[in-house]
C-alpha cells in the first residue's frame, strides 16, 4: 500500500469510518497472521487467529498513539509479537496449572457413539515428528535468547523487515540494529548448537 493511501486510510479509521477499518483489516491481516504463525513453533491457526484478534483489537484502541514514524505494518507486527509472547506465556502457565482437559481419541461420543476421526493434512508422521522437533528446538532457542534479541530476530527473519524499518520501529540507529542483530545471531547459534547437541538432532537444512 502506498504511504499516502495508507495515511488517508488511517485518517478515516481515526474518524470512525467502519469501511476504512475493514479495508485496513483486509490489507494487513494475512501478513500479520503469517508473522504470528512463525513466532511459535507450536502455534496453530486457532492460536494465530486469537493472537491476531488481540493484536487488531489493540490497534483499534490505540490507533491514535500511532505517530507514523514507521510503517503501519511494522507497528502492527510489534503489537502482534507482544501479543504472541503474552499468549505463549499464558498458555505455558495454563499447562503448569493443568488448565487443559485431555480428550481421548478413542472416546466415543455419548450421543452418536462414534469416535472422533479428524482429517490430517500434515506431512507424514515421521517428517512431522522431525520437523516438529527441529522447530521446537529453534523455538526453545529463541525463548532462551530472550529480549531484545528475540524481537530483533523475529522482525528481521520472520517479518522480513529491512534494517531501516527495524531501526524506525525500535527507534534505534541502523548501525545499532546491525550490531545488535549480529550479536544476537551469535548468541542464538550458540544456544541452538547446545540444544541440538543435547538432543542429537541435526540442524534444519535449508
Amino acid at each position, binding site marked *: 500500500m502506498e504511504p499516502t493511501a495508507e495515511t488517508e486510510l488511517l485518517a478515516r479509521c481515526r474518524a470512525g469510518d467502519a469501511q476504512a477499518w475493514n479495508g485496513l483489516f483486509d490489507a494487513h491481516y494475512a501478513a500479520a497472521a503469517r508473522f504470528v504463525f512463525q513466532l511459535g513453533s507450536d502455534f496453530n491457526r486457532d492460536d494465530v487467529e486469537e493472537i491476531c484478534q488481540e493484536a487488531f483489537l489493540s490497534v483499534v484502541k490505540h490507533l491514535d498513539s500511532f505517530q507514523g514514524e514507521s510503517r503501519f505494518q511494522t507497528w502492527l507486527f510489534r503489537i502482534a509479537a507482544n501479543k504472541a509472547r503474552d499468549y505463549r506465556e499464558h498458555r505455558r502457565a495454563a499447562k503448569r496449572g493443568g488448565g487443559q482437559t485431555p480428550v481421548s481419541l478413542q472416546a466415543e461420543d455419548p450421543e452418536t457413539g462414534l469416535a472422533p476421526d479428524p482429517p490430517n493434512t500434515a506431512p507424514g508422521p515421521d517428517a512431522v515428528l522431525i520437523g516438529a522437533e527441529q522447530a521446537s528446538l529453534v523455538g526453545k532457542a529463541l525463548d532462551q535468547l530472550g529480549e531484545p534479541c528475540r524481537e530483533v530476530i523475529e522482525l528481521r527473519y520472520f517479518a522480513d523487515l529491512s534494517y531501516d524499518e527495524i531501526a524506525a520501529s525500535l527507534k534505534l540507529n541502523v548501525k545499532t540494529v546491525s550490531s545488535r542483530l549480529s550479536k544476537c545471531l551469535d548468541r542464538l*547459534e550458540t544456544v541452538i548448537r547446545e540444544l541440538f547437541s543435547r538432543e542429537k538432532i541435526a540442524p534444519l537444512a535449508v
Partner: protein
Amino acid sequence: MDMPEEPHKNIEDTLKAYAKQRRDAAGGPLDMPSHTRAVLQREIAQRAAAAKPGPQRWFEPIAAWWPRLTVGAGAVAVAAVAMLVITDIGRKTRPPMEMAKAEQQTQSAAFPDQSSVVMDSVKKLEERRSDDRIPVLAQSAPAAATAGRVVGEALDEKLKAADKLDGLQVATRAMPAKEMPAPVPPAASKPQPVPMTVASPSPAEPLPATAPLPAPAPKLAAAPSADLAKAMPSSSAKMPASPPSVPAEAEPPVRPAAGQFVTAAVSNMAPLSQRLRFAQVAAESDADVQRQSRTVQPQPSQAVLASFQLEQVGDRVVITDADGSVYEGRIQLATESQQQFAQSRRASRARSTTSRGLAPRQVTTQAGEFVWREKDAAGKREESRAAQQELFFAASGMNRSLNQRVVVNGTLSSPADGALAYGRAGGGTMTFGGMIARDSNAPAGAVGSSNAVMSEGGQIVLRAGPVAPVPAAPQASAQIEGTLRVGNTPEVEITAVGVGP
C-alpha cells in the same frame, strides 16, 4: 537497507529454513474470520459512539477554561493591588512641598482666567513701579511720590488678588516725612484698596523695610478712595499729631518707627483674614417678629447658625455653630450666575426695606446686640458690590443639637462702604453710627478708645503710640447671604453679618 558487508552466518540459514517451514505449515490464505471482524467492528462502533461529541452547553467552555481564567483573574487582581500600593506609596513619599504645590495648582486651576490676568497686570505694575520708585526716592516732588504710592497700592491689590489667601497684603515703603506726598484723588473706578496711613510723632526715624504691621491693623474699616483722598492731608505738617496723652516711650516694638508709613490694604476678595464671628440677622422689624411668633411655629433652622464662627483656611471653610456643630465646605470665587442671583435677592430685599422705611435691624449674638443700619440700602451697596468680587461657599455637616444634617450655601461679601458696624450691647466700647466714611455726623476721632483717628473725610488714621484696641470694622462689614437647609425641612434664606473676630 540491507547490510551486505555483514558476514554470512549459518544461523541465518537455520532461521530462514524455520520461517519457510512455518509459512508452509500455515497452509492456505489467512483471512480475518467473520467473528473476529464482528468483534472488531463492535469495538469500533463503541469507540465512535463514545467519541461523538454531544450538544455543547454554554458553560462547558468556561468550565474547560476555568483554570486559565482563574489564573488570569488572579494575575489581574495582583497587578491592580500592586498598582494601588505603588500609587499610595508614591503619594505618601511625596514631600510636603509638593503637596503645597499641588494645592496651589488646583486653586489656580479653579481661577485660570483671573489669575492669568492678574499676573499680567502684576508684571506690568511691577515694571511701572520699578520705574516710578527711583524718581520717588530721588526727587521730593509730592506728585511723583504720590504716583508711586498709588502704583504701589495697585500692585498690592493685584498681588493680593493673585494670592487669594487671607486678603492681606502689606506694602512697606521707607519714605522721609518731609517727602510725604500730597494726596492725589485716585480714579473713581478704583475704590477697593483702602490704605491705612499711620503717622509717627518722630518722622525723622527711618522705618525698617520689613517692619511688621500691628496685628489688628489690617482689620480697620475700609473707606472709599474718594473719601480717603479728601481725608488725606496735603503734607506731613497737616497730619494730625499724636495725642498728648500717649507717651512716645510707650511705643510697642511692633509699632512702625517714626517717619514711616505703613500702608495696609484690605482685600475685598477675601474679607476674612482667618476667622470671623457672624450673627444671623433677625426679623425685618419688631412687628414682623411679633407676627411670626404668633403665626409660625419655631423651626429648627432658626436655632441653627444664629451665631457662628466662620474660618477660612485656603479654599476650605469651616463653620462652627454656637452649639459646637461644625460644618465644612469649600469656598471659591462666586460665579457670574451666583453673583447675579445674590444681587437679585439683595435688590428685592432692598426694595422691601425701602418700602418699610429704614427701621434698624436687630442682630442678636451670644455676646450682645448688634445694630445694623442700612441707610443706603440698594443703590450704594449695589455700586460697591459691583466693584468687588464675592466669594461663594458651600458647607455641610451634622448639627449636634438637632442631630440633623445642615447644608448651607451662600455668598460672602465685604462691602467697602462701611454700611455695617457693630458693637456690644452694654459694653459701650463703640457703636458706629452708620457709614463711617459718609456719615458727616461722625466726628473726627470717633473711633473711640483706640489711637485711630477718623478724619473728616472718613479715613481712619492710626497714630503711633501704645497698642490700643482697634475696631475690627472690616469684619463687621462682612456679610453672608445664602440659604440654609436643616434636615428635610425646606430651604430658608439667611443673612448674617460679621460681628467680630
